[in-house]
């Protein structure tokens, strides 16, 4: 065969994979949209599940690794955007906001911890799993809200709670880190040192990213296009540096976002909406998320997962109802708000990454505990959020952006 011809069978690369993931997601999203009750995300996840190792096996583990970078970029965008929604001034004016956020996290933690203990899961594992479960999936809530063009008190509060419960989960896992026995991959550094490095380093990185972005913004001015490039550039750079420094991508970008919202007195960084460009990455993110699901997670063990999902929801709902009256939230708002917080961030977002770094065995056991809960939430989470935002009157049933 002449050497100018491609090899046979042809070898795929990241580009073909990225393109195919996008197109597959597009079709999944289109089918979901036709139902008028499912969000597009559910379509992306379903198509990923079907193409993934769990069903057809068209997306194998290697392919998943190749496209991981796109998922990381999209998570970076999401988490930054989320940080921008955490207006610290709001907590000052509504003094029940922070207590209700803390209570929502604490009660859902207690509920999940108690349940896991009931199923004889070891205390430390139960504590870590319950801490991970506190976080609501930011990408799901942001994307469903964007798709429905949802805006209003419930959406605004939901995003604030998501930002807070992600920070709490992240810090919580880091605090528990020293108690986890160091496994083979653990370095000579003590877990305490590692936890400190993780938190302090990520905070510093996020703040440094903000500082540099703000400095550059001073020169480029406030036009949309240059600011868009600036922010996306800084986000991707921060993702990269966080990975290089073995820091938390999640925490660094949350800090970057929160600082951009709260510590920019002259408002040099304008509020960029990522729009269609970011959508590309989100489609890939959710198709890949779908591909991580396995049919057996929906099998007989799923009822532990389902129970976990239920007590988590009850914990959040109870806390939000408890604070509804002093916070002057209506009962209907508290109900839709609780439901909107249903999606669980799970393992994809990197909250558990430091655990894998310290103790891979522990990480694997943890994954086994929460995997079915997360799998179930990948199915019902986006639908619950969509239902909540439509029921609150803030999302448009037929909006398609």
């Amino acid at each position, binding site marked *: 065969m002449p050497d100018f011809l491609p090899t046979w069978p042809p070898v795929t690369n990241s580009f073909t994979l990225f393109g195919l993931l996008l197109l597959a997601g597009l079709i999944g999203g289109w089918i979901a949209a036709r139902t008028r009750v499912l969000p597009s995300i559910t379509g992306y996840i379903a198509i990923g599940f079907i193409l993934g190792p769990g069903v057809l096996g068209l997306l194998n583990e290697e392919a998943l690794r190749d496209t991981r970078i796109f998922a990381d970029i999209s998570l970076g965008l999401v988490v930054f955007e989320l940080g*921008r*929604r955490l*207006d610290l001034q*709001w907590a000052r*004016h*509504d003094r029940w906001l922070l207590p209700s956020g803390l209570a929502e996290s604490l009660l859902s933690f207690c509920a999940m911890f108690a349940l896991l203990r009931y199923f004889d899961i070891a205390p430390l594992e139960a504590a870590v799993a319950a801490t991970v479960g506190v976080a609501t999936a930011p990408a799901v809530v942001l994307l469903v809200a964007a798709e429905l*063009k949802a*805006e*209003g*008190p419930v959406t*605004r509060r939901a995003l*604030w709670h998501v930002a807070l419960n992600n920070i709490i989960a992240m810090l919580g896992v880091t605090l528990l880190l020293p108690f986890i026995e160091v496994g083979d991959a653990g370095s000579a550094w003590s877990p305490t040192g590692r936890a400190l490095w993780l938190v302090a380093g990520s905070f510093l990185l996020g703040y440094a990213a903000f500082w540099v972005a703000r400095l550059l913004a001073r020169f480029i*001015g*406030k036009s949309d296009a240059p600011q868009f490039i600036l922010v996306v550039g800084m986000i991707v750079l921060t993702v990269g540096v966080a990975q290089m420094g073995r820091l938390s991508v999640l925490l660094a970008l949350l800090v970057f976002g929160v600082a951009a*919202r709260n510590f920019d007195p002259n*408002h040099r960084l*304008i*509020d960029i*909406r990522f729009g269609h460009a970011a959508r590309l990455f989100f489609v890939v993110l959710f198709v890949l998320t779908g591909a991580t699901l396995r049919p057996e997670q929906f099998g007989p063990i799923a009822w532990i997962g389902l129970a976990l999902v239920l007590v988590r929801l009850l914990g959040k709902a109870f806390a939000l109802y408890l604070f509804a009256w002093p916070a*002057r939230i*209506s009962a209907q*708002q508290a109900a839709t708000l609780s439901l909107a917080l249903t999606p669980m961030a799970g393992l994809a977002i990197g909250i558990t990454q430091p655990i894998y770094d310290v103790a891979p065995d522990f990480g694997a056991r943890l994954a086994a505990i929460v995997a079915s809960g997360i799998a179930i939430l990948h199915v019902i989470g986006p639908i619950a959020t969509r239902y909540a935002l439509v029921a609150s*009157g*803030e999302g448009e049933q037929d909006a398609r952006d």
Partner: protein
Amino acid sequence: MAPLEFKHSEALTIGVELELQLVNTSDFNLAPDADDLLRRAAGDWHAGELKPELTQSMIEINSGVHERYETLLAELRTTRDRLASHARQMNVAIAGGGTHPFQKWRDRKIYPTERFLTVSKKYGFLAKQFTVFGQHVHIGCASADDAIYLNHALIRYLPHFIALAASSPFYQGVDTAFDSSRLSIVNTFPLAGTMPFVADWRAFNQYFQTMYEFGIVKSMKDFYWDVRPKPEFGTVEIRVCDTPLTVDRAAQIAAYAQALSRWLWAERVDWVNPELYLVHSYNRFQAARHGLAGTLVDHATRTPIGIAEDIQHTLRELFPHAVDLASTNALEAVLAIARGEGNDAAWLRKTFAEKTTLPDVVREQAARWMQ
């Protein structure tokens, strides 16, 4: 249909309606939070009224009836402080201004009351485009015929009100070159314009009956006139003002209307004739387009005069009345605007020049309203 009955009210009492914008605090676009704000405020409302408006990012405050400017101002400030406190708890902001500088009308959601849904069905896209924010000033009239006289005479001075209150230079993301772009949006409605030149209340009632029989109107609410009699309240209502950026200015403009009405009733001017209406659209355009720098044509003397200059001339006549009405402070403030301090449209343009983006302008205008 029975003839309209003009309710008696105390002459020269004043009241205002202000339509306000609700904006979010991230990108400062309009926020559909009227329902939540009304719900939160429902428990602690005493004077006046708080109402929804056509789309979900608008609310309207109606003041009580006042004899004096000072008490009106005090009430408006209290209302503002209360609303601002609720808004802060909701993480939204409230702003004055005749238009939101960059909202897109297609994104607006109609507030779901029967009346607003009917308006939306009747007017199509005009309804959503009507997400603009005005101040209405009511002046109490002792009799219906007094109201008809005042309604005609005020036509001569509407450019003053337009120019003093103008606060909508930006619309749909562009500088319109108008000081009040809002006024052009009101024009598109079929029943916008002015009351016909009727001699008295009896003649007005005949006109209304005819329009009713045509099936064109069902109530006075259907007339979107620049100034109209409001028989249910016993007032004349001036409707050309943009919502100013502060409640203080809203009260000053109401005080100007009060003193002007007192003077017009005292003088019983002899120039109320159909020619008033020949120059009105031209004068109105001048005020909306150029604000205080515009020129109006005085139909009585048949000469053009600068609007800022005409306001200053008028104020000279009004000050003695303002002394009796205890509103000289307000008129001093109006004089300062006409003498060069400039209207809110000028302030908005200056802020845009400094801040360079429209979201920043909204941030500043909300900060100004909420103080």
